[in-house]
Each structure stands twice: as C-alpha cells, then as structure tokens.
C-alpha cells in the first residue's frame, strides 16, 4: 500500500462504488481512476472480497486459534543444551514460561529447565522471570527447590535450571496415602520451616497453595513457584510498588489483604498456610466458591465468617479436645484481620509443635490476654500516685500559657485586677495537697469547679467576678469542655455589659473571647459575628489600641479561614499584619498575625507563601522568646506540616524532630505539648512506613494525652486518629475501626453534634468500611460526614470536597459510575481551586473520574482526566 492519502482515496471510492447498483460500478470506477488505474484495480479487488465475505476476518479467529493453540506445541527449541544440561522432554507450561526436563550426563542428574518464552514482548515479563531467579538464588533450604544454573540463549531468551522435584501435589499425597492427622500436620510443619526460611531472607511467597507444594516419595515437602514472590527490602523500607509480580489471584488461598490490594507481608503467607491446614484437615476449602463468579467469591471471602473446621463433616478423625485446639489454631492463622493472626510463620509453627507435643497452644492464652489488655487499656484511670504530681505541674504550665494568651487578647494585662486574679488562680492550683487524695480531687475540672464556686461567691467585687468567669471560660475551652466554657463566657459577656456598658472595651473583650469559643465549637457564622461586633467596639476606642484591634483581626481571620473563606481571611490578616507591623514588627501580636496568615495560605494550598511566611516568623519568634521557646517549635511544626502536605515526608520528619527536641527541653517528656509534637512526628513516620518508630511515637503521645486529659478529650482523639491511620496502612482494619470509633465517641462527648470534627472521624471510619468492601455502610457513613461538613463548613470547604471524592470512589467500587462521577467531579472542582494539583486526593479523583467516564461510554472525557493524571504523576516522579 502507498501512503495515507492513497488509502483515504481507496476507501472513499470503495464506499462510493459499493453504494451503486452492480451495473454502474465498472464504468464509474474506470472513469474515477483514469489518472491512476492501479487505484481502480485495488478498489475492484476490495469490492470482490467484500462481496465474497469469506476471508479469515469474516470467518473469525476461533478456528485459527483452535488449530494453533490446541496441539500443545510450544514449538522447537533453538538449542538443546542449557549449561551442562540436555533437554529431553517437555514437562509443562504456564503463563510465564515453559518447563523442560533436563539431564546432566556426567553426573547422571536430572533437573527442570525453565525458559521465558517471547522474552522480548515486555520488560515486565523479563523482570519477573529474573526476580524469581534472584529469589531462588538466595534461598538454599531443603524445603525449597534449588537454583542450579542460569543464563540466556543467543536470541536473548533467559533460562534457569532448578532442582527437579519428583513428587505429588500436597493434597493428593495426603489423600492417596490416607494420612492421619499427625502426619498431615507434620508435613505442614515442614512447609512452615521452608516459608519461615524465605521470610528470614525477606521473601514473601504470596502464592502458597497445594499445587505449589510437591511432596517427595520420602514425604518431604518442597515449595515451588516463587514467580510472584516479593522481596522486602527491610521492615522500615517504603512499600515496593513495582507491579512486576502482578498476577490474577486464585481467591481460594489468597489473604483478604491480597484481594483488596493492600500491602502484603509475612501475615499474608500465614493466612495461606491457614487455608492449607483447613483444607488438609477437613477435606474442603473454607468457602464453597466453585459456582461463584470471581467478584462474588471475593465478596464472600471478605465478609463471611469461616465455618469452624470442627463443624465440617468428613474431617480428619481426632478427639473433641484436639478439634477445639485445631479450631483456634487454624482460625487464628486465617483471621481476616492481619493483626490478629499469628504474627509470624514461626509462631504458627510453634503452635503446631505444641499441638503435636500435647502442650497448650500459645494462641489460646494470648487471645485472653489480648482481651484483658484491651479492657485495661480502655478503662485505665491515671491512678498512680507518682503521676499525680506530674499532672499538676502540667496543668499549671497549661494554665500559665492560657492565662497569658487571654491576658494579651483581652488587653488588660497591665491592670492590677488581673494580677489579683492571677494570684488567686495560682493559689487555687497550688493549694491542693500533692501527695494525698485520690486523683479525681486533683483533676483540673474539679479545681475549676472549685474556682467557679469561689467566683460565684465574689459578689462584692463584680468586675473581678466577671473577669474570672471569662478566664475560667477560656480555660474550660482549652480543656475541651465546651458546655462549661459556653455558659461561663456567656455569663461573662452579660456581666461585663451590665457593669461597663454595651460599647465598652470590656464588652469588646468578652465578645472576642466568645468568638474564640465559637471557632472551637465550629459555629463559624456566630464566631465571625461576635468577633466583628467586638472589633467594631475596639475601633471606636481612642486612642486606638493597636494590639487589641490587630489581635481581634487575627482572630477574625482565623474564623474566616475555618469557614473556608480563604480570600476574605487573607485580606483581614493582611490588614492585621499591616496595622501591627506599622506600629512595631518586634511584637508578639505581629508574630501571631503572621502565623495566622501563614496558616490560611497553608490551608488554601499556597504552600510556597505559607513556607516563606513561616520562615519570616521563625527568626522573629526566636528573637522575641529565645531559640528554645515553644512558639519557635510551633513554627517548626507548621513548616513540617507544609512539607507533609506536599508529600515530602522525610523533610517533615526532620522539622518535627527539631520541634520535638525544643518542646521536650522546655516542657519535659510528659507534657501535652510533647504529645502533640509526637503525634505530628508519628504521622510523618506512618507515611514513610517507618512503622516501628511511628507506633512508639504515637503510643507515647496517646499515653501522655490520656494521663493529662483523661480518656475523653480532643487531644486524645488526635493521637488516636493517627494510630487509626497507621492501622489502615498496615491493613489491621479491625484495630483501625476501633480507633476511629473511639474518635467519634470522644468528639460526640466533647462537641456539639454538628461539629465538623465528628465528620472527620466518620469519614475516616467510612474509609475502613470501604477498604473492607462494605460499600453500603461506607456510603451511608460518608454521606453522614458530608452532611456535617456541608452544614458546619459550607459546601465549598476542602473537607466537604475530600469527602465527596471519597464517596465517589466508594460508588465507583460499587460500579455506580454515573453517581460516582457526580461526586468525584464536584469534589475535584472545589478542591482544585484550593489545593496544589499534585495533591493525592486530586490525583485519586482524576483516576476515578477517568475510569467512570470510560465505562459510561464517554472515553473522550475520560482521556482528558487520565492525561492530566499522567502529566502530574510524571512531574512528581521527575521531582523526586
């Protein structure tokens, strides 16, 4: 054929002539192709073939495929020698390669030769073949078929020679020999030894099933097919994301995390060994899947309970007591939640040994101990006398911090009255007997109740009383007791008005304090209203109190930011910075305004601006407070958060560690501020999959927060949330569910029911349901969270957008494509305005929308999103 133009002409003529009556065709064709008669010839031939309709394309490929594939031919080999081995017979073929029988004449030894056919077809195939060969080279164990030799043919076809295992598939072996319980268990015990050996060399098999275990005449099992095994670089290494080991799984032996596509590990092989035991001892698989479609099978595996092995008819004979232990052993090995399985193959093997020796299983007392530990952890009170003193010190420090901030914001720092209140409060906190009494009498709430009662008695000094209400309200707010804070601050506002008059500076202060509370209650409209009202009064004061006005502006900026009104927030904060900066840049108020401005830019996704603002504040705070001050640490944490949100987790970790060191030096190791820094650090570690370090940081944070604030407090919830995230990453979904449920409970107890943080907790809980493929439940929970975000934060807030993107993904998994597109696109549109294009949520949305459009028959639109996804993925790959 010539070029594209000629082809265009051929087609046009072909269609035109074919549309004519038979009689007119010949003459028209000649007339149309006088310039180039060969065109006429070609069109004539095409018309003839079109009329005959008998070519290969008309007949279809089925018969051809039949003839080509059916005779089992894998064709001739270009050579018959591979290293010292000579090919003598074809043993079999699978998806990847062909296996031949090889003989080594000098040693009279036989071996299996595995060849990667059509290696040139794809690099991924070559990589997978090479990976199996590398794995085998590491693993020299009597239970694993050995690698002998490897190389490539002149045409590049790679091959390797391995130990020829002449044996029978495990299940057949047991059935044919009618083996009893103990003999079956001993073989599995040996298989465990081989798997354990592989794990010790950081290799996860991932495809353990009877057909991959051959048993020799002597009764020794050999583990085969490391074709999709996975080399773990180390426990703390990031997850290997190569897909070269990809294969469509046979669900029956696959662990739930494999079916979900979650990270695999030693626990994955433990699960498969559990299924193997189940099948060997009961004669059937845990689930009847033969009549199911693959997706039904997956659903069953992920949702249904495994019938107890002892309840299966036709099981191997054993005593009832023995079956009780076997139930525990098998069901522990194949627990749906990876965190509840035997932690290692070695632990499983130990229990097999215990069983064979007639000893009690480790899995049994462990589960009881596990429950007891859970119980104690949930109900523990900070009762140790030694910790009481620490609690008091922590509280007094908290008190100072709060007190100073309130003093600043109320702009009454200079008054004698304040000093009296401060002295009074200090006395209150230090009055308790450190050494005596049950913990509850020293809990901060008890002290505050005492303070409130004392304040009520101060009728003779109404102004001091009003200030005290305001101070106490602020402390309650800081402690998360919003109901008490609300009534005290409302009372303070009423009193200040009665005493000083509506337009007074005191009422302005009370309004600002009330506005600060409303922000924490996520009642953003009211917050904005209160702060604006206070601000209007402050602006009327002469001379103008720059500190008070800019402080209120900073607060207003925060309220607007929390409501998702980033542009308005930036405008207000810019004016606060300008106002305060014009007077004096070396003030705390200026630093505060800058910090708030940085936060808004951060939330709005303007990372570069946020970063430079934080870098501006950092030396300022150092100069104002000294290099080791907690406020400096706060800026460092903020810089860490910027790195975190941009996906630079190691850099975030560095910042968090710097901050943590300062905070620990300032407050000690047991302070809530230390706990907050540990939580931030833990979060950065989770994302780098430095799991061990993450666990210890987060559990330490939780321990501190629980001891200081009791089990029900938002700061406890923060630590619990990150532990939940870690559990999700480790695929311990039951643990994750427990964490997120606790988070919901805490927020419900602490906040109004419409607080957006309840939405955060619900959304994270929904992610667990979705990971478990419990889509209807996930959908309902996401919708609940979404309603809360919309009501509390507005439809344009980033949290609302993220929840819609997540809901979209759940709908997509349910194959409700049209609905999925509506949610994902809406979330994408909103979030796209506020965040950097590389944000993981936006990338996820692009993928989901593309997939949905493809299936909805609008591939053009799908392509748009997919190419955007690819462009950004390539950019970030380049950056890293």
């Amino acid at each position, binding site marked *: *054929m010539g070029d594209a133009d000629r082809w265009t002409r051929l087609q046009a003529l072909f269609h035109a002539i074919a549309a004519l009556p038979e009689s007119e065709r010949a003459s028209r064709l000649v007339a149309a192709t006088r310039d180039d008669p060969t065109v006429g010839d070609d069109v004539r031939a095409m018309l003839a073939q079109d009329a005959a309709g008998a070519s*290969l394309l008309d007949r279809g490929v089925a018969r051809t495929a039949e003839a080509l594939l*059916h005779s*089992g031919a894998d064709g001739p*080999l270009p050579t018959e020698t591979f290293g010292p081995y000579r090919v003598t017979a074809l043993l079999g073929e699978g998806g990847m390669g062909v296996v031949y029988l090889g003989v080594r004449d000098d040693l009279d030894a036989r071996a299996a030769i595995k060849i990667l056919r059509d290696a040139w077809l794809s690099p991924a195939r070559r990589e997978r073949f090479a990976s199996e060969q590398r794995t085998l080279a590491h693993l020299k164990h009597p239970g694993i078929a050995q690698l002998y030799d490897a190389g490539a043919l002149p045409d590049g076809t790679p091959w390797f020679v391995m130990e020829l295992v002449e044996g029978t598939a495990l299940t057949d072996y047991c059935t044919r020999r009618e083996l009893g319980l103990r003999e079956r268990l001993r073989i599995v015990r040996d298989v465990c030894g081989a798997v354990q050996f592989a794990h010790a060399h950081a290799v996860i098999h991932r495809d353990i099933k009877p057909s991959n275990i051959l048993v020799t005449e002597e009764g020794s099992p050999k583990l085969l097919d490391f074709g999709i095994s996975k080399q773990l670089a180390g426990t703390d290494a990031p997850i290997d994301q190569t897909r070269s080991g990809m294969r469509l799984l046979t669900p029956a032996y696959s662990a739930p995390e494999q079916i979900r596509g979650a990270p695999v590990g030693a626990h994955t092989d433990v699960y498969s060994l559990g299924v193997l035991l189940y099948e060997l001892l009961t004669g059937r698989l845990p689930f009847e899947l033969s009549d199911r479609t693959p997706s039904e099978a997956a659903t069953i595996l992920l949702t249904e309970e495994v019938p107890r092995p002892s309840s299966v008819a036709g099981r191997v004979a054993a005593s009832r007591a023995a079956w009780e232990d076997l139930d525990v052993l098998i069901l522990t090995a194949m627990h749906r939640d990876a965190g509840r399985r035997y932690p290692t193959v070695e632990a499983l093997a130990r229990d097999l040994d215990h069983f064979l020796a007639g000893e009690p299983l480790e899995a049994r007392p462990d589960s009881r101990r596990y429950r007891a530990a859970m119980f104690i952890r949930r109900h523990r009170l900070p009762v140790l006398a030694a910790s009481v003193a620490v609690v008091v010190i922590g509280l007094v420090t908290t008190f100072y911090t709060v007190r100073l901030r309130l003093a600043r914001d109320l702009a009454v720092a200079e008054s004698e009255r304040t000093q009296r209140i401060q002295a009074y409060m200090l006395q209150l906190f230090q009055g308790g007997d450190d050494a005596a009494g049950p913990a509850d009498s020293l809990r901060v709430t008890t002290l505050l109740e005492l303070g409130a009662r004392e304040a009520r008695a101060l009728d003779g000094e109404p102004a001091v009383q009003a200030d005290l209400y305001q101070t106490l309200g602020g402390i309650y707010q800081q402690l998360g007791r919003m109901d008490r804070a609300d009534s005290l601050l409302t009372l303070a506002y009423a009193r200040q008005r009665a005493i000083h008059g509506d337009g007074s500076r005191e009422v302005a202060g009370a309004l600002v304090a009330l506005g600060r509370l409303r922000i924490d209650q996520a009642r953003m409209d009211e917050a904005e209203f209160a702060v604006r009202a206070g601000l209007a009064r402050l602006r009327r004061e002469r001379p103008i109190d720059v500190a008070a006005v800019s402080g209120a502006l900073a607060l207003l900026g925060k309220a607007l930011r929390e409501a998702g009104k980033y542009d308005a927030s930036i405008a207000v904060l810019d004016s606060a910075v300008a106002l305060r900066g014009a007077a004096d840049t070396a003030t705390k108020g200026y630093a505060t305004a800058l910090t708030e401005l940085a936060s808004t830019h951060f939330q709005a996704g303007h990372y570069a601006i946020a970063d430079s603002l934080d870098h501006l504040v950092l030396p300022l705070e150092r100069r104002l407070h000294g290099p080791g001050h907690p406020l400096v640490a706060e800026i460092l944490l903020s810089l860490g958060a910027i790195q975190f949100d941009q996906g630079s987790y190691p850099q975030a970790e560095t910042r968090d560690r710097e901050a943590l060191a300062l905070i620990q030096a300032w407050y000690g190791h047991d302070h809530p501020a230390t706990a907050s820094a540990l939580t931030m650090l833990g979060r950065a570690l989770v994302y780098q999959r430095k799991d061990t370090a993450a666990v210890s940081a987060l559990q330490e944070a939780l321990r501190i927060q629980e001891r200081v604030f009791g089990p029900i407090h938002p700061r406890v919830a923060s630590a619990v949330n990150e532990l*939940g995230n870690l559990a999700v990453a480790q695929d311990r979904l039951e643990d994750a569910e427990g964490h997120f449920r606790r988070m919901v409970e805490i927020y419900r107890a602490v906040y109004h029911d419409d607080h957006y943080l309840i939405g955060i907790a619900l959304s994270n809980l929904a992610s667990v349901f979705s990971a478990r493929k419990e889509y209807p439940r996930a959908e309902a929970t996401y919708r609940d969270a979404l309603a809360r975000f919309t009501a509390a934060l507005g439809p344009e807030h980033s949290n609302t957008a993220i929840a819609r993107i997540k809901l979209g993904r759940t709908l997509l998994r349910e194959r409700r494509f049209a609905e999925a597109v509506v949610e994902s696109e809406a979330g994408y549109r909103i979030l796209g305005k506020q965040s950097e294009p590389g944000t993981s949520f936006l990338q996820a949305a692009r993928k989901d929308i593309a997939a949905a459009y493809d299936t909805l028959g609008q591939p053009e639109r799908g392509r748009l999103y997919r190419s955007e996804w690819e462009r950004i993925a390539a950019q970030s790959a380049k950056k890293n």
Partner: protein
Amino acid sequence: MPAEPSQTDFPIDADPPTLDGLFTLAYEELRRLAATVRRSDPSATISPTALVNEAWLKLAASPHLAPTSRLHFKRIAARAMRQILVEAARRRNATKRGGGKIALVTFDDDIDAGVDSAGELLALDAALEGLARVSPRQAAMVESRFFAGLDIPETAELLGVSEATVLRDWRAAKAWLAVELQRVG
C-alpha cells in the same frame, strides 16, 4: 500548629498497572487459561473471545487493579492475544520447515490445518502492520474486534467514534486485508 486530625489519605495506593504491566498480565493470563483448557479437556474449544472475557472477569474481581476499565483491558488483551497467536504460528511454521533442532511436540492429526492457519495468521499480522502505518485507528479497530471480540458499540466507545463510522471503517479495512491475504496466499 496543633496536630489537627484530617481525613485519612487513601490507603497507600500502588500506581495503577502500567501499559507494559497490564499487557504482561493479560498475556500470561490468556496463556495460562489456554493451557488450562487444553489440559483439562483436549477436545474443548478455545475461543479467544471467551478467553479474554474470562480474563476480564478475574481482573474485575481484583480491586487493586482498578481503575482499569473493561474496554481498556480488552484493548490490551486483544494485543496480547494477537501476540500469542503470532508466536504460536511462527513456531508452527518453524516446525514445518524443520528449523528447530528439537521438537518436543506431540502433533495431533490436524497438523496440516495448523500449518495453513499459521500461514494465514502471519499474513494477517503483516497486513495489519501495513494498515497501522496508514491508519492506526483502523488497525486498532481490527485488532480489538478480531482478537478480543469487541462488538460494534464497544468498538465505537473505545475509539470515541460513532457506530456508523466503525461499520464503514471496518468494512473497508476488512476488504483491503482480505485482498492482502489473498495476495500472499
């Protein structure tokens, strides 16, 4: 900055399969399925369309391979199916010519039919290469329809054109390929 809880990121999500990864997956799964059919029942029919559908069903049950769409997968599977048949045909031809030093093959009676099919398939492969040079879209259309059994609406959706366009393009491409096949044969 307080450690304010935020919504969890999506679970650490491996990249979607690359084109090469997906091709490998389809290629090996199709070969595995074909080998299974052959082993379990030597007289069973091996229909490429059925193999591709079977492979898709298994893929659809593996959520970790989302967001691969059905049509996207079938498009890749068509290419893999073509490669499998082309390789089989090449080997069959080599056997006929006695090109190999060793042939570890038990031939059935249908050897001649096999060799004829091999020649015809290789001719089609070469003709498709030619078509791809002047009209990649039509070559993709033929590949998807012939090797993976995509129907007209699916093909239209895949290529983003109307069904009428598919029908026209398919008819012309088919006629031209038939001419080429006859010229070689």
